[in-house]
């Protein structure tokens, strides 16, 4: 699975996710990536893209939960990401990246690693795996 989340200089957020799914999956199997609110979500506050065990991400409506925690509980982006990774996945393994409309980036994962990269207008740039 691959994904990208962006907030542009006008504060607009967007998210995109694309995948081949799972190796040896049944024909017709649908995972989290195409499900809005599970693998992908964007609103005025943030943009989120998820990856990992699709069934766990779907059951946890992971991407929408990040936005809902910001909207209803007033958490900031990283707090919302940490909460859903810790509390929403049960025994599932997953990761996600997110941006907020005020130019923050955040990520979280409970698998062994996640291929990821970030950059912000003030010059921060980072690429990581573990």
């Amino acid at each position, binding site marked *: *699975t*691959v994904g*990208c989340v962006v907030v542009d200089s006008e504060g607009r957020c967007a998210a995109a996710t694309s995948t*081949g799914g799972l190796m040896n*999956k049944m024909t017709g199997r649908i995972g989290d990536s195409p499900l809005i609110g599970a693998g992908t*979500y964007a609103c005025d506050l943030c943009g989120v*893209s998820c990856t990992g065990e699709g069934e766990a991400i779907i059951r946890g409506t992971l991407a929408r939960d990040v936005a809902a925690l910001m909207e209803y509980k007033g958490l900031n982006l990283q707090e919302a990401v940490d909460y859903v990774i810790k509390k929403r996945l049960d025994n599932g393994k997953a990761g996600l990246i997110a941006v907020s409309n005020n130019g923050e980036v955040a*990520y979280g994962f409970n698998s062994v690693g996640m291929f990821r990269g*970030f950059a912000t207008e003030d010059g921060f740039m980072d*690429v990581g795996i573990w």
Partner: protein
Amino acid sequence: MGGWAIAVHGGAGVDPNLPQERQEEAKQLLTRCLNLGISSLRSSFSAIDVVELIVRELESDPLFNSGRGSALTENGKVEMEASIMDGSGRRCGAVSGITTVKNPISLARLVMEKSPHSYLAFSGAEEFAKQQGVEMVDNNYFITEDNIGMLKLAKEANTIMFDYRIPLAGSESCSAVVESPIQMNGLPISVYAPE
């Protein structure tokens, strides 16, 4: 209001035994995508245009599990899916069961912008792709030797390859995982595809 920001991912559940050169390859691809995104944002591209542009780049490279290099179904074919969402107006588009569209993320965007729906799948999505004139290729374009080998292993073990599990308690770091040949779904963990 802060400035622009961008994040990309290439999948979770990384193989703890991933060889160093593969790790470098992945970091180079992620860095290339970030630089493409940075120059687009500096040229005042909109967020929705940048996320589509970057995911197209990732779909076209066989390194990660999407587009070319996608995981294979039980029948050895590729069935892809994608979604895109624009935070301003909360518009969205999604596709599933895609087998011949070169860049599924662009078809998802066309669903969002050129159809009355937010999600099209399988033959309906492929029909819509033809109507919209997007680039279409044979399913073999998406299949790589690596993934044919992975599918063979998965079938021998009669398993669906999930991503990796967090190292067992007590193994302080991934390197500890490298020594202990953990089995998962009947397979040595080292054979799992990145996702």
